[in-house]
């Protein structure tokens, strides 16, 4: 018995946020959720280490939060929408985090997105009926 396997576990480079991850990341995500209140953001900004301890993060989670290591935080049960609330304190957006997941610059990550969408207007023209081509 124990945590069950799922068919989505084999999608590469992907951390489907399920009960197992949510269980292991609960304190981390709970801390991130607290940042919807400005007074909590201020308290965190004043002493990040103490705030992580207040929410009972594991040592690994706390160190990854302080370092802004978002791939590590994914491994440690972070949910991407909650990590976005932490990224703000490192002056980062989800696109910066995306770049960090790949180990490339944000500009390179934006180019990757453009490359992935390249030719979409031709595709729409072939399909027909789209406004704007």
């Amino acid at each position, binding site marked *: 018995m124990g945590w069950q396997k*799922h*068919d*989505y576990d084999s*999608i*590469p*480079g*992907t*951390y*489907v*946020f*399920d*009960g197992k991850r*949510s269980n292991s990341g*609960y304190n981390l*995500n*709970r801390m*991130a*959720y607290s*940042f*919807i*209140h*400005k007074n909590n*953001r201020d308290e965190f900004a004043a002493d990040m280490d103490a705030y992580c301890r207040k929410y009972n993060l594991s040592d690994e989670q706390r160190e990854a939060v302080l370092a802004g290591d978002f*791939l590590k935080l*994914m491994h440690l049960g972070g*949910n*991407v*929408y*909650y990590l*976005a*609330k932490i990224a*703000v304190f490192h002056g980062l957006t*989800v*696109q910066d*985090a*995306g770049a960090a*997941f*790949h180990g490339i610059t944000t500009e390179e*990550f934006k180019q*990757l*997105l*453009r490359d*992935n*969408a390249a*030719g*979409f207007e031709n*595709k*729409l023209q072939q*399909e027909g*009926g*789209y*406004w*704007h081509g």
Partner: protein
Amino acid sequence: MAKIIAGLTTSHIPAIGNAIASGLEQDEYWKRFFDGYEPVKKWLDEVKPDLAIVVYNDHGLNFFLNQVPTFAMGCADQYQNADEGWGIPLLQPFEGDAAFSWHVAESLINQGVDMCTCQEMLVDHGFTVPMQLFWRHHDNWPVKTLPFAVNTVQHPLTSAKRCFQVGQALRQAVESYPEDMKVVIIGTGGLSHQLQGERSGLIDVEYDVACINSVIDNPEWLYNQSNTEIMEKAGTEGIEVIMWMVMRGALPEKVNVLHKHYHAPISNTGAGVLLLTPAE
């Protein structure tokens, strides 16, 4: 009698809200995207719906992971927007219709769709960005709203097929309300995007276009896919497209396509717009 007069779809990326707040609609990056909403805005201004059912997912504002309802709906006369942790400007409150909502909740539950009912519900960008995209040019929101939240954040998630069935039940719920009301239903989120992990940055134009085609006249194609199949193509966050199926289930089998638009990338996402009306 209340009637569903149209189904709309749109993405709900937070960067869109930021672009609106910063007045970037005419910027080179954004112009083609925002232009794609103009015909829908014009149509909505002409037909003047009374109420919009907005099908969206909460991203950690109203629902934390301590309590995650699979389907939840607002049953209040007002819904507030609130700070999601980024400190961006808040929008004015949205008017609800408690009597209508409670009728819908009762009808859904009687039909076997066991809803979570919410008398207080903070609405995040998943709800507010679509409202802005369609109605921000008005001084006050010109429609009442019913926020309809689907969990697409914490697995296990419901399926595309169940979303479609819930949409069918929603149609019956709306159309059994005796008051004359024009209702539109908006499926939000998607299309392809993955924000997390080494696979982040995924956009699949082919799959997005196939989803749009499916929503128009072959919903079975999409709703017969498992969540894993959808995530393999559309990305972990692209799974939001199942919420388009709630909209589609609320329309009859045959629909008229009054507008369709697609743009990519917007932020990390393929962004699609549809305006469908019942053909029968």
